[in-house]
């Protein structure tokens, strides 16, 4: 059995940490994992992505086209950028946040014919042509609720942990969160994790199989 998770977002959103936490949790629970990471240059605001593969019969650090079981998009538009990796009817955990790049804004202010920003509704409409298993997460709001706006990535860890096909037990994930984040922010991150988990139960678990609530 194997699980492929495609993670994407924008530089600065904490994909590195997210990958680390899952990787450590796998190492500590005796699961095989391989990832291919593309962080681009070290500037903020560029597109970043991680191919994550858990299980015994995976080899390449890159997910073959159409084989990701889950896509995590920390920024909504990025989900479309890599959509070919997602299985038909795969699961999408997507932030409702859109970060409009400067080039998009500059086209709008220079256009005579009333261009508009690419919208969340547009993203969702298009994604629905690929899959109906979409969970939209207001991660920034949940992160704020946790007491630290920088925990959006941990919110998604919570969402992921609720899914039945995610093979790593919650306690390992929580342990590696505790190990990985700065000491002062451990409680806030664990709270963000719980909020993410709850969010998945409310919005996604009606459609896809989830783990027992604990």
């Amino acid at each position, binding site marked *: 059995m194997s699980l492929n998770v495609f993670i994407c977002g924008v530089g600065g959103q904490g994909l590195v940490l997210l990958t680390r936490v899952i990787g450590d949790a796998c190492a500590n629970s005796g699961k095989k994992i391989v990832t291919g990471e593309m962080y681009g240059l070290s*500037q903020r605001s560029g597109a970043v992505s991680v191919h994550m593969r858990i299980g015994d019969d995976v080899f390449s*650090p890159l997910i073959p086209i159409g084989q990701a079981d889950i896509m995590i998009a920390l920024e909504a538009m990025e989900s479309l*950028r890599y959509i070919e990796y997602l299985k038909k009817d795969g699961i999408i955990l997507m932030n409702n946040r859109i970060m409009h790049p400067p080039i998009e804004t500059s086209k709008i202010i220079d256009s005579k014919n009333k261009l508009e920003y690419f919208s969340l509704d547009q993203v969702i409409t298009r994604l629905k042509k690929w899959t109906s298993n979409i969970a939209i997460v207001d991660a920034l709001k949940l992160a704020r609720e946790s007491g630290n706006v920088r925990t959006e990535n941990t919110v998604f860890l919570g969402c992921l942990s609720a899914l039945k096909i995610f093979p790593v037990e919650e306690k390992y994930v929580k342990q590696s969160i505790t190990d990985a984040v700065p000491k002062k922010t451990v409680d806030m991150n664990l709270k963000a994790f719980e909020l993410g988990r709850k969010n998945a139960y409310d919005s996604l678990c009606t459609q896809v199989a989830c783990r027992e609530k604990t």
Partner: protein
Amino acid sequence: MVLKDVLTKEAKTAFMLGNEAIVRGALEADVKMVAFYPGAPTSEVLDTFSAALDEFDYQMEITSNEKVALEVCAGAAFSGVRSLTAMKSVGTNVASDILFVLGYTGVRGGLVIVMADDPHAHSSQSEEDGRFFAPNAYIPMLEPASPQEAKDMTKKAFEISERHRVPVIVRTVTRVNHQSGIVDLLEFNRKDFKKVKWNQLGEKYVTLGEVARQKKLKMLERTKALSEEFETSEFNLVAHADSDIGVITSSVSYLHVLEALKILGLQNKINILKLGTTYPLPKKLISNFIKKLKKVIVVEELSPYLEKEIYVLSKDINPNLTIFGKLSKTFSEAWEYNPDIVATGIALATGSKKPNYQTIILKAKELKNDLPDRYPTFCAGCPHRATFVALNQALKIQVSKGQNHYFANDIGCYSMWIYPPISHSDSSLCMGAGVGVANGLSHVIEERVVAISGDSTFFHAGIPALINAVHNGNKFTLFILDNSVTAMTGQQFNPSTEFIAGGRKGKKVLIENICKAIGVEFVEVVDSYDVKNNIEIFRRALDFDGLSVVISRRECALYGDRVKRRKGEPIVPFYVDKTLCKRPYVCLRTFYCPAYELDNDKQPMISRELCDGCSVCSKLCPLHSVKRVEVKK
């Protein structure tokens, strides 16, 4: 966390990045000297060694370029001390002068050179195939496919290096350096660092003329011995199957091959030879593998390095062998491979049914129609943006007065000036080439040449070109964007920083002192954020009838933020006062800051999460509508 795993004394399994596994391997091998100039995809090797420095007794330098790094390591290795450097492929070009010589002189202590190619040019100016350095310099080469192998090979490379008294290249590609996986850690067995008595070693490292000719013969013998040794290396794997088809592969392509065979339902149905020692090649092993085959498929990224050798070997051993690779057009020499490309190639060669990726990709393309691009751009607070805003204004005024320009960009965060929506630059080449080509251009074009360099790039390769300009009386203007660190590769320290490896105190080298000392007559130092005043100064530099240098100084925003956070200083963002803003969009048109977006009324709005509080946009707003958020005391 991973640093903890790099440091841990216990034997255990850990999740590690390829680059971290390299560090762990070197530490397990008791490395005592490391030196680097940063470059993706190897930068985390430097960063990890720097972060771990306080826990160990190795010596470390972040050097001014790759050649110096290799020379630092060579010096240590001459004395019998194990040393390691890592560089990106194009860095090896810079280091190659000393690399070739080391092939002749050899070393005493193990010297390992991690050389990372970047198929796809993810973060490089070219897709270079560095493997050819190995045969050219007669230096043995190992190629790992995974983090575990990266660790094992790094460790083994020290032994090979000492046994044959020659540096060893561990050649990676981006997808190995930036691949993470489960790695088995072994215990450390480190001895205390002690200085060596050079005179007692009785060593000599010279090569020239007749000495070189003699050494060449020794080098050939050494290579023969290595070739014998590699015939039985544990890094070369053969998987037999009941088939007359075989795959020969190496590096990460091996993992793509395994994946592709799974996709095609050919697992265990085709023979595989995975090569880990790719110079000198184990020719007997390869010959035996291809002897009885009808078809062999060679899967390697970039140039047909293995493939051509296989053609040569097959001529004697199996002239009827059909070879599928780049020469047969089964695979391309361009870009990096992935399971899909490899599966398609293997399907073609074996006559199996191709997976239907085209349908998926076409459907995906439909969904992506009009999706905005996300080019890398200057971070919020980046001082380069401010410098370029002033420079753009200055250039515009100069053009209106009849002075036109050639814009010679260079390699660093400022390279992003080449991307839309700005797309300004006549050239952007390799490190230091901005000043270099300015010399030639200034002789032959009518326009004023404007050259750009960063601090790190100036120290790396810009200085000789500037000295050349002074000496020859060349007239152009050089802007040195001094942000205190080597930003693009992850804000490493450089001679412009007051720190050295491990965050220890070092001596800052002032660029203006260098410029003045070599005789540049116009040298100005400005604060990058002071856009309004800078426009005039930049214009004076452009009008100067001679060589002028402007140093625009302000520390990298990401680096500065980290320093602030450590000191507990707040980052106070700005906001747009909607009652004052009349939407002239000056901010958006001149600034392109990722913290800016339009709100529902198409009014500029600043994201509190992204704003760095640099204040530059607030000073440029003609309506004074950009204000600092009040912090509650």
